[in-house]
């Protein structure tokens, strides 16, 4: 291997990207060539230093702008996909004036009839569709954020979960998982609060009861107890009694558990 050949392999050598044979040939060359050895060490040190240069982090407004724009783009796509009503009407509209007048009267009569029929205020299909889209967007944002490494992102995910539909089982599962497993107390605490909206689901109650004995932070334990009281979950009384009787549990938490048992009786 020549010096020129060795030099262009340097970055791959630092990144451990060389194949075995190439790496051996490269190291043999370094062992024999002091100039290349010195250069490899000098530049290698800078290469390592580059990995330590702090990364610029985007501000929170970038995410907000993106989701707003995406939502607007989707709405634009939907409305562009729908055929224009004028074109449809024009295709059916008669060419003769007499028939045009007859059609006008027929439309007027039909309009009056439909007006009477619609007094029951049925939700319009478009509004329903739009609602579904917004719900799906909220779900996507909440789920994406809840999986992030940074605790502040996960907290934002919980905030988005507040806006999810109470019937959204995917968001509910993500919140339950955050309550049970998240390493950050603030995320767990906020996730417990967000579960209020999902009171109707038996899964929520079951998950809260299961999380209670495993939770170690008193502030989250109290929030879980309060949630069970809000749910009026009498089946949870047994678990709460156990907690109240456990000596290793924080005194304030035990008192709160005892209070909850009394409220649920």
């Amino acid at each position, binding site marked *: 291997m020549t010096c020129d050949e060795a030099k*262009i392999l340097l*970055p791959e050598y630092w990144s451990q990207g060389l194949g075995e044979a190439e790496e051996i040939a490269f190291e043999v060359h370094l062992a024999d060539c002091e100039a290349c050895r010195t250069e490899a060490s000098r530049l290698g040190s*800078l290469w390592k*230093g580059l990995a330590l*240069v702090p990364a*610029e*982090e985007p501000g929170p407004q*970038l995410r907000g702008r993106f989701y707003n724009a995406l939502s607007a783009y989707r709405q634009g796509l939907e409305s562009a996909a729908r055929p224009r009503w004028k074109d449809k009407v024009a295709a059916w509209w008669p060419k003769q004036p007499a028939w045009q007048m007859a059609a006008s009267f027929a439309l007027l009569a039909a309009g009056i009839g439909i007006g009477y029929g619609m007094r029951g205020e049925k939700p319009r299909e478009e509004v329903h569709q739009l609602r579904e889209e917004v719900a799906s967007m909220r779900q996507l944002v909440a789920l994406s954020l809840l999986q992030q490494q940074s605790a502040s992102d996960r907290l934002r995910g919980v905030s988005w979960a507040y806006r999810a539909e109470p019937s959204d089982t995917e968001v509910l599962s993500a919140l339950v998982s955050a309550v049970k497993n998240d390493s950050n107390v603030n995320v767990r605490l906020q996730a417990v609060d967000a579960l209020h909206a999902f009171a109707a689901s038996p899964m929520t109650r079951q998950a809260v009861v299961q999380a209670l004995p495993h939770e170690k932070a008193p502030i989250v334990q109290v929030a879980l107890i309060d949630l069970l009281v809000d749910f009026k979950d009498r089946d949870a009384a047994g678990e709460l009694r156990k907690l109240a009787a456990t000596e290793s549990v924080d005194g304030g938490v035990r008192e709160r558990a005892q209070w909850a048992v009394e409220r649920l009786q």
Partner: protein
Amino acid sequence: MARVGAGEVAQLAVLFERHHRGLFRYFVSMNRNRDLADDLVQDVFFRMLRYRGSYDPAQSFTAWMYQIARNAGVDQARKRMNDVVDIEEFAERRAELMSPAPGPEETAVRGQDLVLLRRAMDQLPAEKREILVLSRFQAMKYEDIAEVLGCEVGTVKVRVYRAMRALEQIYFTLEKEKAS
């Protein structure tokens, strides 16, 4: 991306969560302007939507995305060619991005001053800075970088080496200035 290409536009949110930080760092490294980087990241994702039909799932997604990013950056630079940047605004931007004194996490590591290293990166010519940003900050494969830059893999290796040499020279110059 294949799902976005098939019309599931909402899936773009997943790509955004995965890649917006990397793209932001790329643009800040290239332009030293956070507001402009915000706009360009946004632009890249909407170019991805617009040109989703051109994405070939057999191709590397990262390479395709950075090709779009480069084009967005070039278009923006062309637009700004006619803009006269006020010298005070320019100085302000640089001051925002460069902390005057190293913080605790930026103290010298292995005898290096990371603030100096960042300043050396800023002073590199754009094409050298770009290749280091892609290969080191974004940890992209050389094959993908070659696709983004439209050159051979061997050329990428040579360019990375040359960029490191240039970086070293600037770094030592700055170090001497600091010492004197």
